[in-house]
């Protein structure tokens, strides 16, 4: 759950309102001018009606240069971004010959297979020479070569399912297979006369159109229906499927679900308990209007959410789906899209199941793409043998779509072999370690810097929250200026306020690349942080002080004082904290931390504690309302390595006394441990 700071939300809304108002003003003047010179396309309704393209004209065009940046090299760890210029305020962009070498933090090149590879590329070229670039036919129409068969076997083995089906494009895999699994009836023969009525008899326009257009088109719709009445019954009989989808699923899944015509239920992003609630509600309510029980329910989730960088909570979701089973093997089916996770996570790259320790048999349908980790194209569906046989007979992407290009298939086979170490080297394992280390390093460094980073550890996708619309292009442009290419994502793809930059880490990145990228991000912080822009710069002696002290800490002054200080502060803090706790104070914070807040709660106790301590020559800091929540006022003690043991003992004495006086020892002074132990002995 993302919590937006109040002020940020306010400023972000304000910026959007400003953009909208100015856009409307400009549109108004544009309309006046258009009205002046009459339109030459008579009789045709304009391609864009009203506000339809407002977003694109008035918002997107302002930041257009941040998207679709052309590159002129493979999308490896470093790539050449072609520079573009605009003479009309970003409305059109022209390519120039100039390129800038940038660090690539935008491509889904998780394992570094995007660039020509020593093992894969020669084999790909061999297969190109043998099978040529395309098959010019769908899989069933002579487009299946031995390579495709081999690929399906390799993929099935890799993901841990009995069989797999490979399609030519990842997006199509989702949007073509969901309708087959649930929803529409499929024609027995694929002649055009039987396929057409599928859509024709579809009542979708009826459901979605408003009353006005309904009245208007009822005649037309009736017309469309009348022609194929016999198909209708068949269509309605096979309905009754329910898709339960994560609220942040990818557009291809949304399209697939919409295309299936099935009822779609949505559960809160990655919240298993809400999934359970939605499941129960839907099962109890049955199909809309007819209240018949559902025929089948498919729960659709993603392995890694590409916009969030989070892993799905697979074990929990699986257990919930299993719970609602009644006969063996039947349950709410799980459909998992592993577009970003396959190959990138898990000990041997087998995706989320391996990472989270879930048996692949529990995920009924596993889908994934080859365009991310494997550096190729296409998508797959893996499942039981029967499922694949059925899909091969019915899936339109299989029946009508041009089959996967043989060189692309070879690329996948070779890269899987590298990942599994079947190429005779340990490059695959190295890559996997590398991407995990890289991701974790980068994530923790980003967090240390103070960015708000979403997502889980081990995930190579890390969104950095930007919130304000003005910061979206600023971040992208400033990074590009410093030769770091990042992806930014704004409104229609994310909720209005939650715009973000996304960083995809690759195994091809070296540690130097990462350090460099982090430096650049700091540069960005420098650029945008008001403290850096407006405050007086740090005074030279102060700078010198920082440098010297860092040197001492690192031991570069030739003594071990730095190390001693570090030990001292750790020991001091732990001693002080444990003593305070023993005394019965409520102390927040973790061990090893030199900052320990003592909770006071009552407003009267705030000054009392401070004054009484001061009387006894101990200076403490107290914090009250605007800095803390109203009720949670506290005293804060900061331990230093310069404190000696005597200092500490003295301070503890004073604090204990004052604590008794003020009444802030909220916990019993002596825990009753010995008694408990005695009891236990007796029982034994």
């Amino acid at each position, binding site marked *: 759950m993302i919590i937006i700071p109040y002020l940020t939300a306010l400023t972000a809304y304000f910026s959007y309102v400003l953009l909208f108002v100015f856009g409307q003003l400009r549109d108004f003047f544009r309309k006046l001018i258009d009205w002046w010179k009459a339109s030459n396309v008579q009789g045709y309704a304009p391609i864009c009606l009203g506000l339809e393209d407002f977003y694109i004209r008035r918002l997107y065009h302002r930041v257009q240069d941040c998207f679709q940046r*052309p590159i002129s090299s493979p999308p490896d760890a470093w790539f050449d971004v072609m520079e573009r210029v605009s003479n009309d305020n970003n409305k059109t962009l022209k390519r120039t010959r100039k390129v800038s070498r940038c660090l690539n933090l935008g491509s889904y090149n998780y394992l570094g297979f995007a660039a020509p590879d020593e093992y894969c590329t020669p084999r790909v*070229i061999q297969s190109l020479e043998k099978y040529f670039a395309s098959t010019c*036919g769908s899989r*069933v129409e002579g487009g299946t*070569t031995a390579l495709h068969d081999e690929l399906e076997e390799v993929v099935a083995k890799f993901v841990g399912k009995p069989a797999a089906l490979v399609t030519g494009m990842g997006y199509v895999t989702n949007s073509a297979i969901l309708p087959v699994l649930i929803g529409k009836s499929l024609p027995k023969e694929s002649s055009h006369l039987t396929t057409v009525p599928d*859509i024709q008899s579809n009542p979708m326009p009826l459901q979605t159109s408003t009353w006005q257009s309904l009245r208007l088109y009822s005649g037309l*719709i009736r017309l469309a229906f009348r022609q194929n009445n016999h198909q209708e019954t068949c269509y309605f009989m096979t309905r009754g499927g329910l898709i339960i989808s994560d609220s942040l699923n990818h557009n291809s899944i949304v399209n697939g679900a919409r295309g299936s015509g099935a009822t779609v239920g949505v559960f809160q992003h990655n919240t298993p308990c809400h999934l359970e609630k939605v499941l129960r509600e839907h099962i109890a309510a049955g199909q809309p209007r007819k209240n018949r029980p559902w025929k089948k329910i498919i729960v659709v989730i993603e392995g890694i959410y590409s916009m969030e960088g989070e892993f799905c909570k697979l074990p929990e979701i699986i257990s919930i789906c299993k719970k609602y089973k009644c006969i063996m093997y039947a349950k709410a089916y799980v459909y998992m899209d592993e577009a970003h996770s396959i190959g990138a996570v898990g000990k041997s790259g087998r995706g989320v199941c391996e990472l989270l320790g879930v048996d692949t048999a529990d995920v009924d349908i596993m889908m994934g793409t080859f365009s991310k980790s494997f550096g190729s194209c296409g998508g797959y569906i893996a499942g039981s043998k029967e499922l694949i*046989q*059925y899909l091969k007979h019915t899936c339109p992407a299989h029946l009508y779509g041009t089959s996967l290009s043989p060189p692309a298939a070879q690329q996948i086979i070779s890269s899987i072999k590298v990942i599994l170490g079947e190429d005779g080297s340990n490059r695959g394992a190295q890559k996997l370690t590398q991407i995990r280390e890289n991701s974790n390093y980068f994530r923790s460094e980003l967090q240390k810097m103070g960015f708000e980073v979403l997502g889980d550890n081990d995930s190579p996708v890390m969104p950095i929250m930007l919130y304000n619309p003005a910061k979206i292009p600023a971040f992208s442009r400033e990074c590009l200026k410093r030769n770091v290419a990042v992806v930014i994502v704004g409104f229609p793809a994310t909720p209005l306020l939650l715009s973000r930059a996304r960083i995809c880490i690759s195994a091809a990145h070296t540690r130097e690349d990462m350090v460099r990228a982090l430096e650049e991000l700091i540069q960005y912080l420098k650029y945008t942080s008001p403290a850096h822009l407006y405050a007086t710069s740090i005074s030279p002696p102060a700078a010198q002080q920082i440098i010297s002290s860092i040197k001492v800490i690192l031991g570069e002054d030739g003594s071990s004082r730095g190390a001693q200080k570090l030990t001292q502060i750790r020991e001091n803090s732990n001693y002080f904290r444990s003593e305070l706790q023993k005394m019965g104070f409520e102390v927040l914070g973790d061990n090893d931390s030199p900052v320990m807040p003592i909770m006071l709660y009552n407003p009267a106790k705030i000054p009392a504690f401070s004054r009484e301590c001061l009387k006894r020559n101990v200076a403490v800091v107290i914090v009250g309302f605007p800095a803390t929540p109203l009720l949670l006022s506290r005293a804060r003690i900061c331990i230093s390595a310069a404190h000696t043991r005597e200092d500490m003992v003295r301070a503890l004495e004073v604090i204990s006394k004052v604590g008794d006086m003020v009444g802030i020892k909220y916990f019993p002074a002596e825990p009753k441990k010995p008694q408990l132990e005695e009891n236990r002995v007796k029982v034994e």
Partner: protein
Amino acid sequence: MDLASYVPTAFMESVKNASELITFAYDVPFARAVVFGVHIGGHLFVEGLLLVVIIFLLSQKSYKPPKRPLTTKEIDELCDEWVPESLIPPVTEEMKREAPVLSSAAGPHATINGKEVINFASANYLGLMGHEKLLDSCSSSLKKYGVGSCGPRQFYGTIDVHLDCETRMAEFLGTPDSILYSYGLSTMFSAIPAFCKKGDLIIVDEGVHWGIQNGLFLSRSTIVYFKHNDMQSLRSTLEKVTQDNKRAKKLRRYIVVEAVYQNSGQIAPLDEIIQLKEKYKFRVLLDESNSLGVLGKSGRGLTEHYQVPIDKIDIITAAMGHALASEGGFCTGSHRVVDHQVRTHFHYINLKQTWLTFEVNCIVLDFKIGMDLLSSGTWLINSSKCLMIIIFKTNMDLLS
């Protein structure tokens, strides 16, 4: 006494009783009372009573059956009782049949199960598959760019060859600009929802292929079919649609046809379609998947075949997995559409925004070389029906 005379008498009697009752009410002592100078007549008293009753009734809630939401236990029971169907219907023998597996390339001659066969299945219309020049350029691009672009167009998935290919394609067809898609099947079902929205009107041939059908469905527009390749049916449909409602003029209206129908092999009579389109003011979306590189003197598709200027057609899409022996698709449009889009600063951005990953660089390059071959001199037309090979020179002037 018989019933016929009894009923009126009974009725009269009851009326009499009632009037007596009312007179009694009038005669009660307080009925003639005067309050603040107002005579409280008996009827006022009765009316007052009635009013009270009405107000009382109105103040009552209308009767609703009590709502009892399902208890947790009941929901549990329902969940326990629920029996889902199996994920897929039982697999029939027919489904176990596997497609033939080629152990060679899908060229004109292929090997299946060790047997040499002549290939009539692939849409390799021009025989460009496996051309030496193509293979050279493919392998060099593979060495340079690798296989995948690892990102959608929006995010660093745009490689210079994609842009070159887009301009080249537009040049070849004589349109202002074009957009590449990474997969042929997805071209139509991305392009149609980009142009047609909810409430728009689409007239479509009933024999269009699955990609178009899916696009139509996803667009949520109102869809009306006409009989396959029947211009009479198209005319009457257009007539009916435009006559029935006057608001149709304010809607975006499209006719969707294929140039060469993938399912039936018929060629759409473009000249008649153009006439109808101009008469009824519809825009035309033409899918040239099977006609590009096949029809027309220099392979520019249906428009050249009928010698119709290309800007009469508003939107053209095509898959490149056929005659061009490549993969992917493209979408391009007439000057008028593009002009309009430039005017509204729309400029196809809608299309480009569809989140399709652009994957195969080598294949795009393959296509590019295919285009070069097409325009550089001799090329082959390998008609799917008669398998005749015609070699002729193209007019170089047309191209440059």
